[in-house]
């Protein structure tokens, strides 16, 4: 019997490879680095092309205690969240994170309004606490980020961190800082593929190399716009594989941040007795969000709950076996 011929797609482009983290041989102090991108086919379609680098699982760490995080999440992380260095160390040593995503939430004028130097001290403490690559994210207040991020960039010079995020309207300061200190950069666009491309063009017009850029097309969680995120990421990936170099950048997803915003994840068992156990419900919500977005083409998954991290690493392992 003649078997049906497999319909195999041929792609002419590939995702740009980006390395985060620099070891001693490159002037940094990281004991491990991560390489992302490089895919020459849609995710996990290994019969159509190579996917040299599996998705990376990072964990979110804040520069202050995240008091408004849901109880299930706080219980899993314990008192470690009071100290960013301890928190980061646990993420790597106990929970298996490949990278740390340090969010400088406390620098926001409406929160702690901490100074650029205080933020830089946290960056240094987290770098000293773990050997994995560091993603540094501002407070998403443009004016404050433009003061804080250059100082943090300099404090981490040579470590090839991934700094975020630049937008269409605010990119010059952070691009210049990353250029000077040898970091990689996240370009943010609000679930809009045209703006995503525009951000990449604007940044590369400043002479910033494409092999140090990652896209953040903003993440919608399960039940809250995941379809939009999925279709934007997928369309971007299809364009990239069709040789559009301005779209051929790895993608970061803020999975934990978005999933734990959903009421289905954060409602307590008392509030919603029919929704199942709150200790695991949020974990599933975070995991389902991550597992879905993996299929759209995602390269760095930033997670919050240790159990979701373990489960996601299993999923990635099974898909890339």
């Amino acid at each position, binding site marked *: 019997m003649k078997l049906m011929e497999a319909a195999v797609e*041929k792609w002419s482009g590939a995702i740009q490879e980006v390395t985060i983290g620099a070891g001693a041989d490159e002037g940094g102090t990281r004991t491990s680095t991560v390489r992302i991108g490089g895919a020459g086919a849609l995710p996990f379609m290994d019969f159509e092309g190579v996917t040299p680098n599996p998705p990376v699982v990072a964990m979110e760490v804040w520069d202050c205690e995240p008091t408004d995080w849901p109880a299930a999440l706080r219980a899993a992380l314990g008192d470690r969240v009071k100290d960013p260095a301890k928190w980061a160390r646990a993420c790597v040593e106990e929970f298996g994170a490949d990278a740390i995503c340090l969010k400088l939430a406390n620098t926001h004028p409406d929160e702690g309004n901490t100074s650029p130097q205080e933020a830089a001290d946290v960056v240094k403490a987290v770098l000293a606490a773990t050997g994995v690559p560091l993603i540094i994210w501002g407070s998403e207040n443009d004016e404050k980020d433009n003061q804080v991020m250059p100082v943090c960039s300099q404090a981490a010079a040579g470590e090839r961190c991934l700094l975020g995020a630049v937008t269409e309207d605010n990119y010059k300061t952070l691009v210049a800082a990353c250029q000077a200190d040898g970091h990689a950069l996240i370009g943010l666009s609000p679930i809009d*593929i*045209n*703006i995503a*491309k*525009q951000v990449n*063009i*604007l940044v*590369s*017009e400043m002479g910033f190399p494409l092999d140090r850029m990652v896209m953040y097309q903003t993440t919608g969680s399960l039940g809250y716009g995941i379809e939009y995120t999925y279709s934007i990421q997928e*369309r*971007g990936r299809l*364009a990239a594989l069709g040789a*559009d*170099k*301005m*779209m051929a950048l790895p993608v970061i997803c803020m999975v934990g941040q978005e999933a734990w915003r959903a009421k289905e994840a954060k409602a307590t068992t008392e509030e919603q007795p029919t929704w199942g156990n709150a200790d695991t419900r949020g974990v599933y919500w975070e995991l389902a969000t991550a597992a879905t977005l993996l299929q759209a083409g995602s390269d760095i998954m930033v997670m919050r709950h240790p159990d979701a991290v373990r489960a996601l690493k299993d999923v990635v392992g099974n898909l890339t076996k």
Partner: protein
Amino acid sequence: MNVIGERINGMFKDIGDAISAKDPAPVRDMATKQLTHGADTLDINVGTRVPKDERAEVMRWLVDSVREVTDAPLSIDNPALSTMRVGIEAATKKGTAIINSTTGQADKLEKFMALAKEFDAGIICLAIDENGVAASTDAKLEIGMRSVAAAMEADVPLEHVYLDPIILPVNCDQAAPGIVLETISQFKMLSDPAPHVVIGLSNLSQGASERGLINRTFLAMAIAAGLDACIHDPLDTELMHEMIAAEMLLNKSIYSDSFLKAHLQGR
């Protein structure tokens, strides 16, 4: 869109003079200039000023000169099999090449397809045969079909086949451009994967006034019909911009406010 830059041709004065003087500098400069302006492939044509018995040698010299500055695909533009072999051999030492071109007579197709197979080269097949230029859509399709069959017979992948419906000057036959548009869309349905479709654009406006306008307008229409390769002058910025906009409007590239810049930057 595979832009095949037409400027390295002995018919142009700068290149003709360079050939006479054996000066590779203008040839190399023109190669680089076309690539930075958006050419994907460079057409290499010795022109008609060179005596026939010297054309193969001049072709080799042109290809070698261009290969000093780029390994981009080269379109070897000559009707004679012997000159073609010399050009393709030289071009594929470093990079790929396209045979430009063969006509549709069965014996000629067989020989040129064998050459395409031997050098893993692309091949442009003209809608011309022993009866001359095919005038109707049906006649063009028949030669197109014959060319696709010859490629399959010779084990040349369809991704390497470029069908050229032949565009004639609009001031000779005003019905011809419409016939070509119809042919382009039907060529794309001849096989799966579809063959590429290419035209030599500047022929359309030969001898006419408003050449740039005529070329630009037709290129946009042809892209909408399915054209995916074109031999033209990439230094014609207005033409290139029209092409980029047409592809964007057809959702072949993702829009951004800087979409014109993105086209060249993203290469």
